[in-house]
């Protein structure tokens, strides 16, 4: 959109310009608030979309900016969900916000430990290692039934009202706001990170790892840092999931969850943060509508959407929108 030429000597101007808010960026939040009042979809579905947005944002940090393709991101989502859930079910730690942060912190720490090893690999090896990590976590949770509830799922999660006032009602009115605020903070953090010097260096690593190494950028450390942050945010999504549902099953760690979030993000468009919003909204709404209309055959329509997107909208739906806007502008000019 901007054609301003930047002075290479003064990167601060460049970064400051990138962090400036565009009016269109208020749009998703206006929509989110409007959803609460108009309820074109149920708030429960809204909460699911918000959780998916957080999870997709976390993936976008490493995939869209760091260039790390993973098939095991559910490991961190699940870690957040199980930690928050087990704290409540076993230790009676029922305060929601500290529970959320505790879950996310453990997920982040786990991300740091695994990322340190995983990020030394790339390509198919990385893909398979992350995939195996996710599956092994699920197996681990299945075996340690005493703590996790195994296949039955972890029941007995009780979450106190937020600030002692707002409880998790059946219509999800309070939890919609809770999730929305969490989404907003996560988004702010992501936006800050990707537009910082650190964020630009990640893009550099994505585009040309060797060159970044050659100019002395600590590539591995940078990647581990962003991976840890990403795992932390995936943990937030998982913890929210556990609190909203008050129930955690092995499904939070499944390969299907890792795969789905990848699809959501690619559908929306990677490396642009808002892709997570578009992808989550479209994917969940399409799936929900199709599954309601055709409980047995919804996969046919969903598959069709994915194939079309891959063939015709390479940059994801948001990328297609951007090209369209650019095209219109060129027509005007």
């Amino acid at each position, binding site marked *: 959109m901007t054609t301003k030429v930047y002075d290479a000597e003064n990167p601060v101007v460049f970064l400051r310009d990138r962090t400036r808010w565009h009016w269109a960026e208020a749009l998703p939040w206006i929509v989110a608030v409007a959803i609460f009042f108009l309820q074109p979809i149920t708030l429960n579905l809204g909460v699911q979309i918000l959780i998916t947005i957080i999870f997709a944002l976390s993936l976008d940090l490493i995939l869209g900016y760091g260039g790390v393709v993973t098939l095991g991101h559910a490991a961190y989502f699940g870690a957040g969900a199980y930690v928050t859930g087990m704290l409540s079910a076993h230790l009676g730690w029922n305060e929601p916000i500290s529970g959320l942060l505790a879950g996310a912190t453990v997920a982040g720490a786990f991300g740091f430990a695994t990322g340190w090893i995983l990020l030394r690999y790339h390509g*198919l090896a990385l893909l398979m290692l992350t995939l195996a990590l996710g599956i092994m976590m699920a197996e681990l949770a299945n075996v340690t039934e005493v703590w996790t509830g195994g296949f039955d799922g972890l029941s007995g999660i009780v979450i106190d009202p937020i600030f002692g006032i707002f409880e998790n009602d059946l219509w999800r009115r309070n939890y919609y706001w809770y999730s929305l605020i969490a989404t907003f903070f996560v988004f702010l953090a992501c936006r800050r990170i990707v537009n910082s010097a650190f964020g630009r260096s990640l893009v550099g690593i994505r585009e040309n790892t060797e060159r970044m190494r050659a100019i002395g950028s600590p590539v591995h450390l940078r990647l581990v840092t962003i991976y840890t942050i990403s795992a932390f945010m995936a943990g937030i999504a998982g913890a929210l999931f556990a609190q909203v549902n008050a129930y955690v099953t092995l499904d939070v760690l499944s390969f*299907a969850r890792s795969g789905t979030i990848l699809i959501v993000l690619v559908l929306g468009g990677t490396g642009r943060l808002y892709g997570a919003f578009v992808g989550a909204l479209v994917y969940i709404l399409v799936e929900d509508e199709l599954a309601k209309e055709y409980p047995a055959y919804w996969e046919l329509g969903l598959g069709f959407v994915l194939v079309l997107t891959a*063939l015709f909208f390479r940059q994801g739906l948001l990328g297609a929108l951007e090209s369209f806007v650019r095209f219109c502008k060129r027509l005007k000019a």
Partner: protein
Amino acid sequence: MSGFVTSAVSIFFDGLAYAMLLFVISVGLSITMGLMGFVNLAHGAFAMAGGYVTVACMNMLGVPFIPALVLAFFFVAIMSIPLERLLYAPLYKAGELDQVLMSIGITFMAIAGVTLIFGPNPPAIVLPEFLKGQIDLGFKTFPTYRFFMIVVGFVMAIALWLGFERTIIGAKIRAAVDNRQMAQAVGIDVDKLFILTFALGSGLAGVGGGLAIDIVGISPTFAFNYLVLFLIVVAVGGLGSLRGAFLAAIVLGVIDTAGKYLWPEGGAFFIYVVTVAVLLIRPDGFFGKGASQ
């Protein structure tokens, strides 16, 4: 013979039969991924399609089992050609993410489509008499069908090896796997090779699907449920490597079987532990060509 040796022999035998199933399905994936660099997550769907073709041939048309497998090969191979041209070819130069999105989309559609046509019920077939029952090898009896699996697996491995190592087309494919640009530069029609290998790989997956009916059964969700296993075989063996896929299938098949036999409670762990261990030490698998680290 002591109990330990008998157990070891039967673990190895059963593992080998399972390994051959993995090999037959995975080898196509390994070659197409190695040659075209296409992350084809729809490979399981081709195997599933082969399984259903086998079922349809046997139960509706009364074709015997082995001809039905041959038909499954040709049907899936031929069906895969227009798919390759229309859906895969446009994405060869795209990123792996778009390839993942597209092939998962195909898998979704295949699952729903097969459910529409055949219903969600897993179908069954009746094996011919000569594949039923037990075969006595003197010191121990083995299930005949497993024995048949092993024979088929080895025959296919040898045939593929001869095809790759001893024919011009095989040499061209090897050249293209090693260096596509160079192969193109010396006048090899890589496009045609792509179609050929894609059809071959898909057809083999189709046969694998047919063979799988009597071991794990076939159902619409087969396309996803076993995909992880096939990917693991490819990664552990090394992209585009025939002997890699063969060796990886044997190692993983036997270890998986041994794990389940010796430690049923945690048996599912073994195969992943081995995968992680191999990839941590050799990121390109047993015989990969070195691009992952």
